[in-house]
């Protein structure tokens, strides 16, 4: 195989991992609350700025400030669900969507007010140069990002499948009233699930900070990407989100190599529409249907 295609493929997998983590969060939130979080991209940007501020302020590695971003976003997500979205949980779904959209604008404009629209770039000195394997060059930032995604995803899965709280989250996503009848407090479970979803996108943002220049509306592109990935994976289907994230990363990167960067997004969204036409429930459409 042409080595450069192979290079593009690898880059795509590494970036796709980061997308996958953010989309996993979106899909989890949908699976439990049945709402699409339009503040997902803005929350990712909050994660980016948290890393930027903590790293430049304390002079520490972004991979340590990542922990701050994770905690901040968990709390932010918990609070948003508990104090805002929950209050209108009886309202029609589109009102809940508008609420998350409103939150997105508040977060973005807050960032604009504090940090100005100027690009910010974090100088990272954790690594020197890049890793070369024959003709393949790998960016250490992307490799570390992929490793962190792997660990975070594994921890979330263990949490969902092995702990009482995690099982309660899955129970709520599969049958909310069934969960209530077993004494599960929906309000608390929802807030935790939203917190975890926000944490996913926050960590994804944190991992992108050493790779990209950041600005307050950067999250918007990722919002759309997460949305596409989560739908491809079947909304609420976590494995589907992970695999679709990798696929989108690879398609984007390989198209960029073959046809040039401006074709990447076009190809991803065209493929997305085509797939939906053929399979309206997404590639892995067996999402969490809720039984009534």
């Amino acid at each position, binding site marked *: 195989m042409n080595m450069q295609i192979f290079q593009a493929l690898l880059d795509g997998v590494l970036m796709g991992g980061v997308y996958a983590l953010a989309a996993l969060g979106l899909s989890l939130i949908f699976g439990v609350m049945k709402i699409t979080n339009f503040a997902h991209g803005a929350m990712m940007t909050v994660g980016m700025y948290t890393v930027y501020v903590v790293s430049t302020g304390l002079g520490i590695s972004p991979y340590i400030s990542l922990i701050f971003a994770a905690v901040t976003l968990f709390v932010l997500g918990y609070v948003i669900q508990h104090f805002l979205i929950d209050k209108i949980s009886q309202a029609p779904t589109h009102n809940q969507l508008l609420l998350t959209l409103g939150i997105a604008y508040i977060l973005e404009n807050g960032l604009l007010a504090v940090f100005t629209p100027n690009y910010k770039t974090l100088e990272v000195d954790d690594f020197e140069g890049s890793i070369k394997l024959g003709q393949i060059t790998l960016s250490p930032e992307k490799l570390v990002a992929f490793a962190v995604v792997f660990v975070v995803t594994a921890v979330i899965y263990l949490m969902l499948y092995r702990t009482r709280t995690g099982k309660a989250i899955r129970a709520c996503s599969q049958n909310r009233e069934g969960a209530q009848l077993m004494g599960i407090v929906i309000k608390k479970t929802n807030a935790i699930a939203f917190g975890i979803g926000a944490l996913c996108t926050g960590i994804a943002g944190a991992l992108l900070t050493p790779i990209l220049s950041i600005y307050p509306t950067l999250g918007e592109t990722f919002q759309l990407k997460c949305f596409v990935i989560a739908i491809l994976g079947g909304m609420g289907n976590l494995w589907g989100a992970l695999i679709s994230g990798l696929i989108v990363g690879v398609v984007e990167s390989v198209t960029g190599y073959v046809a040039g960067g401006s074709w990447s997004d076009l190809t991803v969204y065209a493929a997305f529409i085509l797939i939906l036409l053929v399979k309206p429930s997404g590639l892995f459409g067996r999402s969490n249907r809720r*039984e009534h």
Partner: protein
Amino acid sequence: MLQIKNLFVGYGKVTIIQDLSMKIDSGEVVALIGANGTGKTTLVRAISKLNTVSGGTITFDGENITDLSPDKIVEKGIIQVPEGRKLFAQMSVRENLEMGAFTKRARVNEKENLEYVYSVFPELKAMEKQACGNLSGGQQQMVAIGRSIMAEPKLLILDEPSIGLSPITTQHMFEAIRTINKKGISILITEQNVQDVLKMANRAYVMQQGKIVLSGKAQEISKSEELKKIYLGM
């Protein structure tokens, strides 16, 4: 044990349950019967607080529980096997049972209760690892009842447990309910299978359009002319 006084329950502006009073004593099996759409489910959902009560009171062991949240009702020991079962379809049989023991109160005896469930429904043990969504209706009903036993009920509410089951499976289910009652658990059961449930129950309430129209000993109700009139003359 459970006392309902002058209860009103509805959906939006429509009132379904009107001025309804009933009680369940400790250790009793009480049947709630009535045709389709009379409000049996509306009533039992209100007891579990899945429906909001718009008037009247519900007391349990002398305590007013009318305004408690669903999880608090479960903590008190009122557990419901709902219409349609409401299982966690993609979770295994074992996980569904474990979710029954979610409350602090139920966690204490989780192991013993699991063994008890497997002794009542030995079939469940063999399919422990299967996802509930793949089971037959009868098997799912066993999981639903098993899950409620894991929650350590003092009062167990069963909303049409025989719906969609074959006559043999229904008998099996009623047998299990009798066994559970012998453990000292009070039971409120709604049914379409009127004669079968009246054989099992101590007392019965007959409901029509959101009101109790007949109540008394199950044996007497099953023979009464009024029951026939209500059922045939609707």
